[in-house]
């Protein structure tokens, strides 16, 4: 270091001040007369209210051969009702300054409404109308089906999505809904019509198996009245709980190259499944996974990005697939990122070496401490907006977790030691039980990848 370039007064690094208490917000839980569960949470200052609806309409409930019907139904909810045409509905919603997003995933359908609090009543009325009396007009469903078919080629062309599709296909048995794309394939989507959408709606959408999470600055809102006027008018029968199929996956170590001749980068996605948030090891797994690949200063990027420059960033993460009350659910454990084509072999060699070193030497206390400080410390930032709080509360509902799960997770993280975090990370990412998907130029990367000995290598068409 040369003093000549430092022309400022240098001061020692300051110490932290006194932390102020913060806790993940506790919602008030109740139910409407129609059986709809309601979680409400007042967040002062959050003028944009977030409403997150979970419908008990999981993907495994889709009829055989109709993969994608949950997605089309979710989209069709806002394409016309008994009172508004599709265009009118969209216009009325936007007149409230609202956004409405609906998507179907393994645990069920989720609908997210965001709207300035001053127009909450009107927007919730529209949302209730969509849930209570969707039109499912033939021509609108046909249009949504065609639109969905048009989207599929775009998804296949995207390296990250192409990799995700291949990983699902590799990991899960063909009979499992999880082996197939969440939003269906060309073949299955083409079979969907208005009758199928209505049948799925009638079988799986009812207030008794739905939950509404409402978060924001609710100080000036008579929420009971608003709810009675809107979601309270939704009626439906009760339903027996659905059996939840077990989740199994084949994580025999192997490599699938999805060939993209001429690709300048290789998209990598390495995965297997592991425990969900019901597992006692979850806090340790969160901690260990963060230390492995949660950020730019985690082990993977320290080597692959900041030492070698092979990538803009590689991340390790967990994502809950589906949970069940009996704790038989599972999460995807994965590592993903893009590396340049010529360095694909070296990057994977280094990645495996990082995993081997982790297994052999474990995490350091300093790494564990930094991870806890980050994961716990960022909570007030992460949950500043109503939408982030609503999303997490709705996830908990959907995963059959108690309303104070996230709050207790922070305590759990703080109590998790280095040894436990190491054990969880090593058991999450064992070097011989990882399925590796590479979307890239097979003519360039196949040879170097074979030399690594990380499992049988097959090449499939892009």
């Amino acid at each position, binding site marked *: 270091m040369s003093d000549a370039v430092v022309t400022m007064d240098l001061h020692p690094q300051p110490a932290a001040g006194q932390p102020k208490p913060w806790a993940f917000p506790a919602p008030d839980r109740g139910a409407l007369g129609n059986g709809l569960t309601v979680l409400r949470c007042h967040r002062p200052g959050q003028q944009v209210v977030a409403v997150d609806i979970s419908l008990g309409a999981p993907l495994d409930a889709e009829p055989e051969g109709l993969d994608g019907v949950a997605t089309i139904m979710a989209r069709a909810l806002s394409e016309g009702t008994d009172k508004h045409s599709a265009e009118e509905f969209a216009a009325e919603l936007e007149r409230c*300054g609202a956004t409405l997003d609906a998507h179907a995933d393994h645990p069920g359908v989720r609908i997210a409404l965001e709207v300035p609090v001053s127009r909450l009543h009107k927007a919730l009325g529209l949302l209730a109308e969509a849930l209570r009396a969707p039109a499912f007009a033939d021509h609108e469903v046909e249009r949504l089906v065609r*639109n969905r078919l*048009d989207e599929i080629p775009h998804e296949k*062309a995207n390296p990250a999505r192409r990799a995700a599709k291949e990983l699902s296909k590799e990991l899960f048995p063909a009979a499992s809904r999880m082996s197939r794309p969440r939003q269906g394939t060309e073949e299955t989507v083409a079979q969907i019509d208005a009758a199928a959408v209505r049948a799925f709606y009638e079988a799986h959408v009812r207030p008794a198996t739905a939950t509404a999470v409402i978060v924001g600055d609710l100080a000036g809102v008579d929420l009971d009245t608003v709810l009675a006027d809107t979601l309270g008018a939704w009626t439906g029968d009760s339903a027996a709980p659905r059996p939840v199929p077990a989740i199994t996956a084949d994580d025999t170590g192997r490599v699938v190259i999805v060939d993209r001749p001429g690709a300048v980068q290789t998209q990598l996605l390495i995965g297997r499944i592991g425990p969900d948030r019901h597992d006692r090891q979850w806090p340790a797994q969160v901690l260990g996974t963060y230390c492995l690949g949660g950020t*730019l200063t985690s082990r993977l990027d320290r080597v692959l990005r900041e030492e070698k*420059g092979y990538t803009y960033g590689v991340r390790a993460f967990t994502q809950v697939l589906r949970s069940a009350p009996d704790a038989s659910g599972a999460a995807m454990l994965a590592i993903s990122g893009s590396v*340049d084509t010529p360095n694909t072999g070296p990057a994977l060699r280094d990645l495996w070496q990082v995993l081997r070193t982790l297994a052999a030497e474990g995490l350091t206390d300093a790494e564990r401490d930094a991870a806890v400080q980050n*994961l716990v410390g960022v909570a*007030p930032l992460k949950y500043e907006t109503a939408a982030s709080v609503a999303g997490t509360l709705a996830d908990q509902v959907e995963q059959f977790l108690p309303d104070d799960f996230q709050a207790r997770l922070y305590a759990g993280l703080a109590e998790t030691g280095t040894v436990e975090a190491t054990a969880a990370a090593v058991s999450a990412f064992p070097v011989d039980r990882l399925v590796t998907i590479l979307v890239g130029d097979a003519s360039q990367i196949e040879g170097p990848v074979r030399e690594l000995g990380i499992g049988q290598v097959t090449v499939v068409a892009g």
Partner: protein
Amino acid sequence: MPMGHTATAQAGSGGLTATEHRLANGLRVVLSEDHLTPVAAVCLWYDVGSRHEVKSRTGLAHLFEHLMFQGSAQVTGNGHFELVQGAGGSLNGTTSFERTNYFETMPAHQLELALWLEADRMGSLLAALDDESMENQRDVVKNERRQRYDNVPYGTAFERLTALVYPEGHPYHHTPIGSMADLDAATLEDARAFFSTYYAPNNAVLSVVGDIDPEQTLAWIEKYFGSIPSHEGKQPPRDGVLPDLVGEQLRQEIREEVPARALMAAYRLPHDGTRECDAADLALTVLGGGESSRLHNRLVRRDQTAVAAGFGLLRLAGAPSLGWLDVKTSGGVEVPAIEAAVDEELARFAAEGPTSEEMERAQAQLEREWLDRLGTVAGRADELCRFAVLFGDPQLALTAVRRLLDITPEEVQAVAAARLRPDNRAVLVYEPLSAEETEAAGDDGSAGQTAGAAPAAESAETDDTAETDENSEPAEREGADQ
């Protein structure tokens, strides 16, 4: 102690206030208190972006931004990231045409650390900058370029449109990511010179927003930043003045491995900071924002010729703003059919203007976007810096939404009639390769969702959330679970 004037709450700003201060070395400071959540956002805008770059050194501002995370006199290696994240904070930096920003959101009791870190690199980066960092980050940035542009379908569309609508030699002709050749050519000496020229307290605005004690915060800012010398050697960017209209329809057809035909276009629009720009924002929202827009209704709902259709606005202060049309065709639909429909809708809009319902919807949408933007301390800090750097007055951030709501339908119609014309645009047409061509040329793929988000800024760290959903873009989902 630095002095400055104090502003009070403005109607329409939701009770938010900001105070302004200036250190003796020229550093402008904006503070805004909000004690609802124990967090504090620090945001530092340097008045330098890719428009300041010179020929054969495109991408230097962004590459340099990466180097700002590689240590300074008292911060070793990746210490900047390690210390902020270890304190429970989050951080990043981004580079656009007109500015480079660095930001940390911290638990309130860790605010002083973020100020110390920003001051250390503002005043002493060159003490740590070396060849090793330069070579490493050059590779990282080249991989960023591959990941975000070169390895995705339509990935270079924005770069191509920009190059068309801002002519050769114009400071906005190239985008912040720069070219591979120029990234390869950049030297350590270039980086040093860039720092010495542009990274000075008198070329920056620092905002701190959130659960802060303003007096204490100012005292820390004075302590850590006060001794950094000002520097007057800044080169102004080349003149960005252009005629209001392109004057002809520019056109480029690309034959590439893409999943569907696409029609894209860039229009020259009024400069940011004017009523006309706000009017253009409303016009583009009515025409191509959301699910009830004219283009969505026409192309996606009625004609069913497009899978997605929309307009986005890139506001620019130092050059005409850019309106970006993006239509991906459905099935075998040909581009001329789309183009005729778009032109018909634009002409009708120019002739008739928006209906009162359309104005109400567009204003409600843009109002919510502003509430979202100002609803977090980080968003507020960034907007305060933006208005301070680009328009000299941070208070304008707190009244921006009021100005949008003040625009009349006549103004919206006027800007559409004047600007959304075929002779004021660059058109980019994508034609997929045939099967045989594909085999010869190779495949490099990905998707295009909708219009709107122009990749006009580059970040130090990937902000894509990891995801294993086959269908969703990372940004659409919650991402990794904790």
